[in-house]
């Protein structure tokens, strides 16, 4: 019998260690409150259905009346979805819009949220317990759609429509240019209509559709070809805006660096990001994507780019959790890749100053203790060990910290 490449037992052990102890105490408390509420609700529901022939007869009559009402009202259900915008309820056919430099969420009671970016106009064109239809008239929206709620989502954009199951994505629509951009972060959507094929175009996580009505747009924009247009693709690319293409046109579906990074293909992601202009990306990406870009560089061993992205993250989003995390990552780059313990110490201290009791603080204090010990600063390590014992009484390295404190002080 051949030797296993990695023993299942070792795999199990490493999984166990990486998973750690489980959810936090806060989560457990929330679970308990939710359970008690659910059991109370269920027991209340059951106790209100006491047997007895009179009660049963009354119940039957009430049920029959309810059925009649249900039929009469066209299937009205008590799981009606409610929508709020700026704290006020939104009804079907209502228009919603945001001002410049303002973003507002359209909150759905089943848990989904559609955020209207600045200067965006939209309309809740249809809302039933099974259907939610939005129309994006102009601007940008970011959708975070919950899965398995029984609600079918469609977002109409000019001549197109985006059909959704459960996912996170953004839709941009420039009405004047008839320019549509759909970027999918999670899950899957299908885009229909306009000049797309009859069965639409499916977009997976990390994919992006960039489309001008009637024209395929690619990055960088294609240069005009002096030669006669011969291939269908070339004809497609040079067709004038406003002149719809036949229904066979294929959209531009490129893998994005974000999609590659999400799948763990960090080197490929970094190479693609480099093609798109790494420094430009660090100036324009939203904070979470900038963290992903920095990590792609870090995991690819490109410490220089990782540092540039992380410094930009801290510069652009000061005070944000991502910026605090950036300090920790800068410490990791300095410690693991560049082997600069002094630099690592500096960033670990910055991280702990900004986030002294955060979830990653225990890990940061452990690194700090180890680096200080390795550099011969026993007194400094002791001070950190004291902090560790105080802030992380259930920490994984509590015994190490206590052992350090138990050692006699050097004079």
């Amino acid at each position, binding site marked *: 019998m051949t030797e296993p490449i990695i023993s299942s037992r070792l795999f199990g052990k490493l999984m166990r260690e990486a998973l750690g102890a489980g959810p936090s105490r806060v989560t457990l408390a929330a679970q308990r409150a939710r359970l008690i509420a659910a059991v109370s609700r269920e027991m209340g529901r059951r106790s209100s259905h006491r047997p007895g022939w009179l009660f049963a007869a009354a119940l039957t009559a009430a049920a029959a009346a309810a059925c009649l009402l249900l039929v009469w009202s066209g299937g009205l259900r008590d799981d009606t979805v409610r929508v709020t915008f700026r704290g006020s309820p939104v009804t079907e056919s209502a228009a919603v819009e945001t001002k410049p430099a303002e973003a507002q969420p359209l909150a759905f009671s089943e848990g989904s949220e559609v955020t209207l970016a600045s200067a965006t106009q939209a309309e809740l064109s249809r809302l039933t317990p099974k259907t939610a239809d939005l129309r994006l008239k102009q601007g940008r929206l970011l959708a975070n759609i919950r899965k398995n709620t029984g609600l079918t989502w469609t977002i109409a954009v000019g001549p197109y429509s985006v059909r959704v199951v459960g996912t996170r994505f953004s839709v941009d629509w420039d009405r004047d240019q008839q320019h549509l951009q759909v970027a999918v972060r999670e899950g899957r959507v299908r885009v229909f209509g306009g000049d797309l094929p009859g069965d639409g175009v499916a977009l997976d996580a990390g994919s992006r559709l960039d489309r001008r009505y009637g024209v395929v747009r690619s990055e960088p924009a294609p240069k005009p070809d002096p030669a006669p247009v011969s291939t269908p693709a070339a004809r497609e690319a040079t067709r004038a805006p406003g002149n719809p293409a036949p229904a066979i046109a294929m959209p531009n579906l490129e893998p994005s660096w974000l999609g590659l990074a999400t799948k*763990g293909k960090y080197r490929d992601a970094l190479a693609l990001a480099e093609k798109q202009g790494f420094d430009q990306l660090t100036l324009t990406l939203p904070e979470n994507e900038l963290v992903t870009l920095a990590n792609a560089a870090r995991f690819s061993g490109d410490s220089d780019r990782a540092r540039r992205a992380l410094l930009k993250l801290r510069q652009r989003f000061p005070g944000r959790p991502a910026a605090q995390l950036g300090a920790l990552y800068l410490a990791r780059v300095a410690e693991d890749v560049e082997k600069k313990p002094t630099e690592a110490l500096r960033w670990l201290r910055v991280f702990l100053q900004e986030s002294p009791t955060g979830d990653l603080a225990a890990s940061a204090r452990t690194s700090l203790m180890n680096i200080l010990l390795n550099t011969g600063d026993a007194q400094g390590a002791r001070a950190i060990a004291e902090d560790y014992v105080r802030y992380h009484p259930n920490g994984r390295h509590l015994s190490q910290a206590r052992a350090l404190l138990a050692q006699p002080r050097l004079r």
Partner: protein
Amino acid sequence: MSVQPAPKTFKPEPGADEAAEIQSAEDEELARQLLEDPVGAAKRVHARFASDVNRLVWRLLGSDPDHNDIVQQVFFKVMMNGRRLRDPSRLGAWVQSITVNTVYEELRRRDVRRIFARDWYPIEFHHDLVRDVEARDLLKRARSVIDKLPAKERIVFMLHFVEERPLYEVADLCGYSLATAKRRLGAANRRFQSLITNNPDLVRLLRQKAEET
């Protein structure tokens, strides 16, 4: 899959001591309260089993974003099905059995969704998994392998190798005979080796982690 009665062949730990007997008596008392006053018992049941149920779901699913919902399902089943518990002193084993069944049902649902809906979902974690990035990266890659095991094999594999349950316990928790549990574990092991062979990055990472620890 319906809620199973408590496993009958669950072997007691060797040298079951006084503490276990006290626990068993407390469980009997809790099981009675479950029938008489489920709302009042909810708090106690959660306090008694939250740590076991959470750990089991956490490890079986690998810090899944739906973790809280699944734990809620487990407790709800426990609270609503108290009368199906035949031996109140075996409340603990019964709760674990419900936990394993609930996770199994969830994995089966996902398997079916994957076959018919052909939906692809990115690997996500519960928001409480805030460990260092390297651990997350390892878990992400490990989950990409584990998620490919069929539900029946995955449950047995995770219970035995991650949760470190002996095979007879795995068999009892899943409602299998010992022979079936052994066969499933063998199949899971073979499939795991085949999957991991095609994933050299993960092998390298695991070896590196093993050396570090």
